[in-house]
């Protein structure tokens, strides 16, 4: 798929990224379908094509600073051979996908796209995410505006990659970030403050002014319920994958609750990348 060179990037009032921040655009390989972004982030955006799912403008804008893989997928029941659906719907699906890709390109993001007919969307997400080295996957929901991002942080591990991605996304925008930790007991609050403090520092280090970062520590023994409640006041939630796969994450996993209750999009940071950071 084509990519818009940086100099053609339409001016959208964003500041230029400050020094030290990995350039999301400049270092993209020219025809970079399968090559992973060198040090930027790459977000997989599955779009249920042919069923009228649209990518909200606010999402397109928010992702303008990272590499994006648009995965147009059409789920077919097992009574139907995937080739059968392809024979009939391919052209229409390709057209719809081209529209979505066009929107991302207009916003300036380097875009790759895939169209898949599948019986099992979760398997497809996982496969494409691995093939195209996406470090996160955005589960679309309606998003009229994106002003506030919620980043629940569980523990010391994984923080760096998640925060790095968040920093890249919000740099040069007015998006506010809430770092949230749910402590199970009051004694853990100090540690949590320290944890969020260092996360906020990292975030500020890659271009987010301090006043846009809020830190919240809540003491509650039902962390997921709490996260879901706080998420209601935010537009997008960023969560780290806690099980080996996105499939588990969505169907058999604590974050099911977050994804289900969230009215806004959920950005899931994939586990292999998180583990990489742990080392």
């Amino acid at each position, binding site marked *: 798929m084509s990519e818009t060179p940086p100099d053609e990037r339409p001016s959208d009032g964003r500041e230029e990224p400050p020094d030290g921040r990995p350039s999301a655009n400049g270092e993209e390989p020219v025809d970079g379908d399968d090559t992973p972004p060198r040090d930027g982030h790459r977000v997989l955006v599955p779009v249920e094509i042919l069923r009228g799912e649209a990518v909200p403008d606010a999402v397109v804008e928010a992702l303008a600073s990272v590499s994006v893989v648009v995965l147009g997928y059409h789920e077919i*029941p*097992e009574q139907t051979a995937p080739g059968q659906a*392809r024979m009939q719907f391919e052209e229409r699906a390709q057209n719809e996908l081209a529209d979505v890709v066009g929107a991302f390109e207009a916003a300036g993001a380097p875009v790759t796209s895939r169209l898949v007919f599948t*019986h099992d969307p979760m398997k497809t997400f996982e496969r494409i995410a691995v093939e195209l080295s996406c470090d996160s996957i955005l589960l679309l929901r309606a998003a009229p505006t994106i002003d506030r991002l919620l980043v629940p942080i569980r523990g010391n591990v994984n923080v760096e990659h998640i925060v790095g991605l968040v920093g890249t996304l919000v740099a040069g925008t007015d998006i506010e970030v809430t770092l949230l930790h749910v402590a199970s007991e009051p004694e853990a609050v100090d540690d949590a403050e320290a944890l969020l403090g260092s996360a906020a520092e990292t975030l500020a280090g890659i271009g987010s002014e301090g006043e846009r970062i809020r830190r919240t520590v809540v003491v509650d023994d039902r962390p997921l319920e709490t996260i879901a409640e706080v998420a209601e006041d935010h537009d997008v939630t960023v969560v780290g994958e806690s099980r080996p796969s996105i499939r588990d994450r969505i169907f058999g996993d604590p974050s099911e609750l977050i994804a289900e209750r969230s009215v806004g999009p959920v950005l899931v940071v994939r586990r292999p990348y998180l583990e990489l950071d742990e080392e």
Partner: protein
Amino acid sequence: MSTDPPAPESGTVTEDATRHEGGTELERTIGLAGGLSIGVGTMIGAGIFVFPGLAAGNAGPAAAASFAVGAVVALLVALPTSELATAMPKSGGGYFFISRGMGAVYGAIVGISLWLGLVFASAFYLVGFGEYAVGALAEAGVPVGGGTMVVVLGVAVGVGLTAMSVTGTENTAALQNVIVALLLLLLSAFLFYGLLDAVGVFGAETVPGTFAPEGYLPVLTTAALVFTSYLGFAQVATVAGEITDPGRNLPLAMVGSVVIVGIFYVLTIFVATSAIGSAALEDAGETAIVEVAREFFGVPGAVAILFAGLLATLSSANASILSASRALYAVSRDAIVPAGASRINLKYGTPHVALALVGGPVVALVATGQTELLAEVASFLHLVMYGLICIALLVIRREDPDWYDPDFTVPGYPVVPAVGALSSFALIGFMQRSSQAVGLVVMAGALGWYLYYARDVRLKGGFGDE
């Protein structure tokens, strides 16, 4: 992969998807367990739950040998089919291989016969379901008599299954896997007890009686009758385009499912004839295995096997209806029948026309209630395809085109495919005249259709020229 990939479903095959030019991908979602479940699930309903009574009535305890003969023939075909499927992991199975190896005439006859063969098979399973449903009602104290009620229930379920296939979008594959696993567990326990009983652990050793009371010819005619129990492995090939890691999983699923059900069948007949004798089995008819369970475990055993029989015949019927719809898709893709036949609707994403073209004839055939005729015609049409699959392998190997690069190669080439072809055709010779006549009429109809509608279609070696 080949540089000159097969048309029209060309594209690069990977373990998890088929990638077409233009960037469109088709996800592969059926693993080895799913493939085995399709094969075993399609087959086990017939061999264990419908045939034992009929087979033992015809051949006595030697019916076990009939099932063994069937298993050998099925294996001789499953091996060549595996090789072709790994070289062409596309939807359509036997039709695809034969049309590409031998040309459109053979392809059209086989493709249309496969659709109708599966229609006959589905009808056969549904009649079996009706027998079990009536048996279950009788067990529950609602004796409804035989004949008519069997047909009525079979027809009702046939209509229901077709309607569900058109409108249902929930994932039933997982359910199918569970059902097959449950059936295998239940049957293993049943057979284990039965074998111990037969060798005398629970008292006197039971003898199955004279092995072949009617002589050895009935062994072969019975093998021809019960061959319907071995049709499922070809259904694995019809979804070859959706199997993950096809080079490994296709051969394992096809050969594996034949071996699994073959062992279960032979043991079941041995246990059944040992337990209550051939005459009693014959009297019990299609639900004979229930009487065997009753002999071992009393009413709970009978109820368990009735329940298992309902599940097994239902899953076999469902799998066959879906396969038949795939078979129609394969021939319509190649313009042998109008493309409208495999159109799918956006609302449910299902091929409603093809499903109706399967469900309608199925229901009509169930209404005849002719278990043996339905089974033999289904076998007839499949055996013709099996023989031609073996021949297609011989033809393709001899021509050795560039694109032909199977991951699995048949052992014992060329003996295995040659014997496979001969034994498939030979088995047809042992069927009843009426079944042979109906089978020939269907094939003649298919040929007539080809001459009328699809005479211009060229498919042989048509990997590049669509």
